[in-house]
Every structure is written in C-alpha cells, then in structure tokens.
C-alpha cells in the first residue's frame, strides 16, 4: 500500500485542513435554492444538454472562396467582402419552441475554425501543419491540456463524426473540404505571417522556449485576438441597419479623396467605411435569410401556436433587419443578433453584453407601461436568452479552449453599479435577469454584480440569494476599486469620473472601459452604457509564476523538458533578497520578449484581419472613420500581462525564506534535490489525481519526509500572517508597477491582470514540485487571491486580511474564490450572512469574490458518477461550467478547495 501525503503529515502531527470553521453535516447536503425554468426554456435547455459541440465548414468555406477572388483589393475591403459573403451564405436554422433565433452556425451548438487566424492546431497530430505549430511552441499548451469527457465535448471520433481540436465533432464528409480550406491559408494566416516577423525580435529564442516549456500559455494575436471586452449595441438599437448603412455611404462621400490633415491614415477612412458598409449588408442578408426561414416554417406548420410563433419571429426579423427595434422583444432579439455577428467576425472569448439590463431598460420600461409586456413574458424571454448564450462555443485550440477556457465563452453580464451622475443604476429588469439566472441555471451569460454601497439592500440580497443556487454567479466586483483602476489606466486617454462609472466586466473578470451612449425612444431620452475599449487580456498570456521560480532555482533550465529557457543567471542566491531579485529579473525578461513578439502578432492581425463590425459599434469609429487598427476606439490602452500561480509563488518564497534563509533548516542545494525528485513521490499523471492530498509516495523511501513536512507547514498565505503577506505585498507592488514599463503596439503601457481562468491546471501539470510542498504535476491554487487548498486555517476574515494587504486598484483585477457549504448560509439569515461576508471584503478594498456553494461530497460523487450530474454547475475561476465538461485536473482542484462550514468571524 503506497504511503499518501496525509500519512506523512500525520506522522509529523500535521495536516492540511480541507474543512474550516467547523464540520459539515453527516449527510451530503444539496443546495438550498433550486430554480425551475418555464416549460419552454426547460425543453430548450434539455436540447442543449443533448447537443454535441459541432463544427461546420460553411462559414470558412464562403469566406475563403470570396477572399481568394479578390487579389489586390485594399486589405480591409477584401476582408469585409469575405465576411459579407460568409454571412450571406450561412444556413439559417430555427428550432421548434425558440422565441429568440440566430446562431453561429446551422447547428444548435455550433462553431467553426477560422484558418485565416491559425490553421495548424486543428489538424491531426501527424499533419505537417500541426508539427510546425509544435516546433514553434504555439501548440505546446495543447499537449498538456485536457477536456472533460462528458457533456457535449466530442473528445473522440465515432461513427460519422471526427473529433477535432479535442472538443468539436465534424461530419467526416466535411473533413476533406475543411483541410483544403485550411491549407489555402498556409503561410498566409496571422499565425504564419506573425511567426515570420516575430522571429526578428531580439530574444526570440527565449520567447520560443517560454512557449515550449509552457512558462507562457499562449499567444493572443492569432488565438483570441478579440474579446475580454464589452460589446456596444447602441448604434443598431438607436439607428437600425438601414440607417447605419446610409451613414457609412454618406461618410464615404464626405471623405473620399480627402486626407483632412492626416497624411498617414486620413485616406484610409474611405476604405474603412466601404468595408463597414459591406459587412453590414452581409449581416442584413443573414438576418433576412432567417426571416425567410421563419416564413417557410410558418407556411408548413400545422400546429397553430407554433405557427403563430414563427409568424412573430418572422415579423421581428423582417423589422430589425432594417429598422431600430420598437419593443423589448425586438430589442432583445437585435442585441443577440449583433452579439453573434461580432462573434462570427473573429475568434473571440469573453465578448460581454455588459450592463444589458440597463441597455434594454428603455424598451422594457415603455412596454410594461403600455401593457405590451408583463414580467412573466419578460422572464421567459430572458430564460430563452440564457439558452442561446449557453449554446455558444468558441472554436480555438485545445490549449486555449481546454487549458484556458475550460470550454466556456465568458459572456459576462454586469448588473448594478452607478449611473452617470453617481446614483444606483440597478432596475427592475436586472432583478428579472437575476431571477432568470436562478430559474434557468446555465453557464451563460454569467453575472457580475458591480457592488457599490449605494445599491439598495433588497437588490444585493436578491444577488446573494442567486449565489446560493450554487451556480457561482453573480461574482461580486468592487465598483469603486474598478473605477479607480479605470481612471488610472484610461485617464491619459481622456476618461473622467462620469465615464468611468459606465464600467462593466468584459470576459470573466476584466475591468473594461465603457461609455454612456445617448438613446431616444418614442421621444424619451436615455443614456445607456456600452463598451468603448479595445480587447483586453491581449498581450502576455499567461505567465506561470511558479515556473519562473523553478527556472530561477535551476539556473534557467526547465526541469520537465530540460530546455534552456533563460541564459543562466549564475548567482549563488545566497540571500532571500538575491533570490527574489532574480525572480523579478527572469519575469521582466519574459515580459520583454513576449511583449515584443505579441505586439508583432497583433499588428499582423490588425493589418490583415482587422475588426470591422466590432469597430463600427464602438465609439468613436463611425464618427472618425478609423477602425481598431487606426486606434479609432475611444480607449486603446488595453493590452496587459496576465499571470497564474501567484499564491504558489508567494507560499514558495515564504518557505524558502523561512527554511533556507531565516531558520537555515535546509540548504538550497538540498531543497533543489528534493524538488527535482518530487519529494520521493510518484507523478500526478501516474497517480491519476491532480490534487495534493491524493499523491502517493514512490516505494518505501522516507528520504524527503522531514523536508517535505517543513515545506508544507511553513507559513502560508490566507491566514493574516505578515511573514507571508509582506512577500505578497512586495510582489504585487513590484509587478503592478513593472508592467507599465512595457509598451503595447498601441504605444500605451501594459498593466497587470491577475486571473487564472483554467490555466492553473495545465501550468501545474508541467511544473515540478515547488518549495511550498506542492507536488509535481498537481494543479496550482486557482485565481490570484484564493488560498492554496487546505492551507487557509483561520477563517474567511483572515483570508480577506491577507488578500487586501496590497492595493487592488493597481491591477485590472484580482480574483478570490471561496467554497462554502450550503448549510453555512441557510435561510434568510444565511443570505444576510453571505451578503455581510461579501460586504466585509469589499470594504477592505478587495476587488472580486465569488462563491462555490456546494458540498464537496457531492462533487466527489459527481466525479464517480458523471452520468447522474449532467446539469451540475460549479464555479471555476471567473466562470461557471458544467462539471462534466471540465477536465479532471480542475475537478480535483475544486474538490480540494477549502470548504467553509461556517462564515462567522
């Protein structure tokens, strides 16, 4: 019987505490609040549960066919004509019972590759394109990422279906055409062209080694070049497509042949407006095709209720294809159309609808007042919207979709916050949005509460009640801290306090610049919030901090691949200060080389693959005639440096400081040996578990037991212990300031971004044991402010004190997950307790907190019997996902997270 870590700790009278503040009830406890959707939404959700992620070649086929016939056209117009053709030719599918229609493809849960960005990653492993991607390091993360094998993931080929990119199923009859289309982009994709030029950057060999060792997770320029931003629906809602096309035509006439004082880009405006006009016409045709399909179904339908619904759908689409919406239903349908259109323009994760309840408020308010709508109908529509969002898939590489996104698409809907004048911005429609998220629990859109002390208690309690359903949403974000960050980051581009109040979260947790847009409906004027910044979480993504430490301890050589990543530092590391200094030096070098390469990739993207539609929607592109590539957006300082494994780094530095430098219990050489030998344990892969407590010793060796126990019991983050927290503060102060030393391609400073998403699994998988006692291959602590599982022993308020030892407004975000047992917050009193707990963290300056309200024993059972848990939702790190669609490394980590049995101080 192999010895487990728990046995070794027990011998030393030590243990990891996976339950804090008491013990759980004897029997597994289900979540207290469980909602039920309308029969219609339930049918549509059940259809989702049965649907496989399916890929189609239709969009890439028509895009590539049109693009190929346009040699020597102006690049932006060429791309627009290709997009127009693709939209025009998409096959419209409407499913019985749907009220809101339009999808990415003709499948219920469909998506497609975009080989003009990158074409190698979805080839078979033996394909030369895939081998090329491996050789340059861009597919290295794919090799160490996993998907859950349940739910809609097609992880293996079967019957007539071929699995591609680890998750998507495609009909075998389409595969040869898909390959032909992919090969048409060989040497021409953003990935390929970018690679040609990135090799010219100084230090490129380090960049490639960082990718191959998975010290850095992925390049954003050709994987997810857009997203983590807030879309802006204002122009289509205010003007409608006909008027927008008319405005682009009018603008063409105004700027044609004129530089207007701008000799560099003034002339480009004509081509940009021409491109915008083409894309808008393509989208209009796409919507009209859906309207025709609704009419066709209406004509064939014998059942009167369904026939009337097809009629209603057709009338709605025929109207919004041309004109601004008149009703809440039309406005909701139009926002969805715009959302999908933007998603089809590029590979995007984290395209957030922003404060949708405030955007749609004018139609809701007026429809309710006029008796055209009641709350029941609105709730049903909002439930239907949740299903449409949940059906979204993002087609990208295994490393990106599996390793980073866990299959999620991060459409984050923000609620609450303040209005332009600083008053609470919440409204009744937002309460219905929360209600729909409770009655129709699903992954998308996830919700974020922009917490402000000014918001009414009843609204905050409603949000807390929703959290208790265990869906993980809404996450709670500190509105004031976010505004402070925005003013610091975008003040130089002209943002003032009033504009900063428009803030919404893009992607899982990216504080995003937004603006107030004027809107008039039936003579009444409103200001609605919408996105006005470039994509965020583009630039350097993600940097593994524990791996950087590994490279410092082993003089620049990655211990998994034995690849030299950095030139040897040659330092003796004789003091903690010298060690910490070298960590910073390697980190800074990594950011330097990665930012240069990523600037090139994004530059190639914006030259050859620019965002036409998304640009047109964002202020102030329509007015100026400049798209994203010419900095037409109001806010352009959005590139950042994203890290993973903060707490494992901090705990490891604390252990090194304590054991090696302060108490001198072990030498650095002895510790290196223990780490390289994984403290005498088998690998996580061999054990088949990725959580620390399940790891097993190799044979009977006891060689490293004492050292390992010392490492595990060294001071840990999350216990209000200044010994560790001072290291965290030092790191954060340095990291947040240092990012600003690097310049993005937009000539703006980078900034810090601290969310793990799912990267703590694959990055943990490639990292050897760390000085905090974590073993090789096991998953890192999630997020950036979550404690490492089992090490936060003094309750949530001690954790909050540790987390807020630094100024969160210096970073775009921070992230803290807490797992609470349902019994700890039962009843109305429990809801208030949860709100008070949250409020305490916000008032200490914490930026973000989210909860998993779940009994860990249920998760363990779900791991053993996944077939019984198709609908089980959990919060990972900034997003909610179906348990069965998550890879085992993340499942193990969520099970291991410390479970709080009580929340009292």
């Amino acid at each position, binding site marked *: 019987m192999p010895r487990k870590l728990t046995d070794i700790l027990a011998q030393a009278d030590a243990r990891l505490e996976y339950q804090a503040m008491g013990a759980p009830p004897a029997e597994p406890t289900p979540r207290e609040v469980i909602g039920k959707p309308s029969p219609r939404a339930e049918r549509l959700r059940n259809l989702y549960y049965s649907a496989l992620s399916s890929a189609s*070649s239709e969009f890439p086929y028509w895009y590539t066919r049109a693009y190929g016939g346009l040699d020597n056209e102006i690049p932006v117009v060429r791309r627009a004509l290709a997009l127009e053709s693709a939209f025009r030719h998409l096959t419209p599918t409407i499913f019985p019972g749907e009220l809101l229609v339009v999808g990415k493809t003709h499948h219920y849960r469909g998506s497609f590759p975009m080989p003009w960005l990158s074409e190698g990653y979805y080839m078979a492993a033996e394909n030369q394109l895939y081998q090329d991607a491996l050789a340059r390091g861009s597919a290295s993360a794919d090799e160490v990422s996993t998907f859950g094998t349940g739910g809609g993931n097609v992880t293996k080929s079967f019957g007539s279906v071929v699995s591609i990119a680890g998750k998507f199923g495609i009909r075998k*009859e389409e595969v040869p055409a898909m390959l032909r289309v992919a090969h048409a982009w060989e040497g021409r994709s953003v990935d390929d062209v970018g690679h040609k030029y990135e090799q010219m950057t100084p230090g490129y060999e380090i960049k490639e080694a960082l990718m191959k060792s998975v010290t850095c997770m992925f390049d954003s320029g050709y994987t997810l070049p857009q997203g983590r931003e807030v879309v802006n629906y204002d122009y289509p809602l205010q003007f409608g497509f006909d008027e927008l096309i008319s405005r682009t035509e009018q603008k063409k006439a105004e700027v044609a042949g004129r530089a207007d004082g701008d000799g560099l880009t003034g002339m480009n405006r004509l081509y940009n407006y021409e491109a915008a006009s083409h894309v808008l016409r393509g989208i209009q045709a796409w919507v009209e095709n859906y309207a025709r399909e609704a009419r066709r179904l209406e004509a064939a339908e014998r059942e009167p209720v369904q026939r009337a619904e097809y009629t209603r759908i057709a009338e709605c689409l025929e109207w919004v294809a041309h004109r601004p919406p008149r009703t809440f239903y039309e406005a909701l349908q139009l926002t969805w159309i715009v959302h999908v259109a933007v998603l089809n323009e590029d590979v995007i994760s984290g395209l957030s609808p922003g404060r949708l309840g405030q955007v749609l408020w004018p139609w809701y308010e007026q429809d309710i007042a006029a008796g055209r709508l009641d709350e029941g109908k609105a709730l049903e529509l909002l439930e239907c919207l949740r299903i449409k969002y949940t059906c979204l898939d993002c087609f990208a590489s295994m490393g990106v979709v599996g390793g980073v996104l866990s299959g999620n698409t991060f459409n984050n809907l923000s609620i609450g916050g303040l209005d332009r004048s600083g008053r609470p911005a919440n409204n009744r429609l937002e309460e219905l949005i929360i209600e729909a998220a409770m009655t129709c629990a699903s992954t998308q859109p996830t919700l974020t509460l922009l917490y402000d002390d000014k918001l009414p208690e009843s609204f905050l309690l409603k949000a807390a009640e929703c959290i208790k359903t265990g869906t993980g949403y809404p996450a709670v974000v500190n509105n004031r801290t976010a505004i402070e960050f925005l003013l610091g980051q975008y003040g130089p581009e002209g943002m003032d306090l009033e504009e900063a109040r428009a803030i919404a979260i893009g992607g899982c947790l990216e504080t995003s610049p937004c603006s107030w847009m004027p809107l008039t409906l039936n003579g009444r004027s409103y200001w609605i919030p919408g996105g006005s910044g470039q994509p965020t979480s583009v630039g350097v993504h993600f940097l593994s901090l524990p791996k950087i430490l590994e490279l410092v301890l082993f003089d620049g050589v990655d211990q998994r691949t034995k690849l030299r990543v950095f030139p040897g530092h040659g330092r003796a590391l004789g003091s903690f200060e010298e060690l910490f200094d070298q960590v910073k030096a390697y980190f800074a070098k990594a950011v330097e080389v990665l930012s240069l390469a990523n600037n090139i990739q994004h530059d190639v993207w914006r030259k050859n693959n620019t965002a036409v539609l998304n640009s047109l929607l964002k202020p102030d592109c329509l007015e100026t005639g400049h798209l994203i590539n010419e900095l037409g957006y109001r806010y352009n300082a959005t590139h950042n440096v994203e890290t993973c494994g903060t707490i494992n780094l901090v705990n490891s530095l604390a252990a090194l400081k304590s054991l090696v430098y302060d108490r001198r219990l072990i030498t650095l050489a002895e510790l290196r040996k223990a780490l390289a030998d994984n403290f005498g344990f088998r690998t996580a892969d061999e054990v088949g578990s990725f959580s620390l407590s399940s790891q097993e010793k190799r044979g009977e060796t006891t060689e490293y037991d004492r050292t390992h126990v010392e490492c595990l019991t060294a001071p840990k983050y999350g216990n209000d212990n200044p010994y560790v927290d001072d290291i965290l503060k030092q790191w954060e102060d340095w990291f947040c300031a240092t990012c600003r030393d690097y310049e993005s391609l937009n000539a703006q400073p980078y900034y810090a971004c601290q969310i793990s998403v799912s990267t703590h699994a694959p990055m943990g998988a490639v990292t050897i044991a760390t000085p905090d006692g974590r073993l090789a291959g096991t998953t890192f602590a999630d997020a950036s402010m979550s404690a490492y599982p089992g090490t936060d022993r003094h309750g949530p308020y001690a954790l909050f004190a540790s987390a807020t030892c630094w100024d969160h407004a210096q970073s775009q975000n921070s992230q803290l997950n807490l797992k609470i047992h349902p019994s700890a917050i039962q009843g109305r009193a429990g809801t208030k307790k949860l709100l008070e707990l949250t409020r305490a963290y916000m008032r200490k300056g914490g930026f973000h907190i989210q909860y998993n309200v779940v009994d860990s024993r249920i998760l363990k059972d779900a791991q053993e019997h996944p077939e019984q848990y198709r609908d089980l939702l959990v919060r990972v790190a900034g997003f909610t996902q179906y348990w069965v669609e998550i890879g085992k490394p993340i499942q193990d980590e969520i099970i291991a997270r410390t479970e709080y049995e009580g929340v009292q101080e």
Partner: protein
Amino acid sequence: MTTPSRHMHCRNYAPIDAVKGICHMTKEIVHADDDACPSFVRLPRCAECKLYAAGADDYVGVCSATSNRPMTYPDLVAVTCEWFEWRSA
C-alpha cells in the same frame, strides 16, 4: 445523381449537432444518417446542383458557377446559394 434519402438531407431536418436533428414535421429527434420518412423533402446542397462536379477525392468537388471553378463539397448546404440549380427535377 441519386442521393440516399437520409434525414440530414431533408429540408425538414434542423441539425442539433453532427449526429442528430429535429424533424420539423414530427418535432421528434432523428438520427442524421437514418433513412428518411415518406415526407422527405430534398435539401438544396452542392451534390444536388447542376453546377457541381465531383472531384478525384472523396467528398470534394468543383463548382462551375464562377469562372475560377472553386473547390466545394457535396454536403455544403445551398439554401442561400445564389447560383444553385437543381440537377434534376
């Protein structure tokens, strides 16, 4: 060209995913590859088009609608194609 009457090639078939769909006539879930029912209505797709010519490789052909004769594939749905012409009545 005679094509097998499978559900996935029927105009009443709404594809849920790569293996199944909903029949608009019955509202039942049907398997893409199963034989269609008597209510089968042919779906416009390249294989059914007068302008389509099969290529040397399986599942890849040529479209002669435009002078550059681009590659296409037989199962490409053509309900939105401006050049589609039924191969036979």
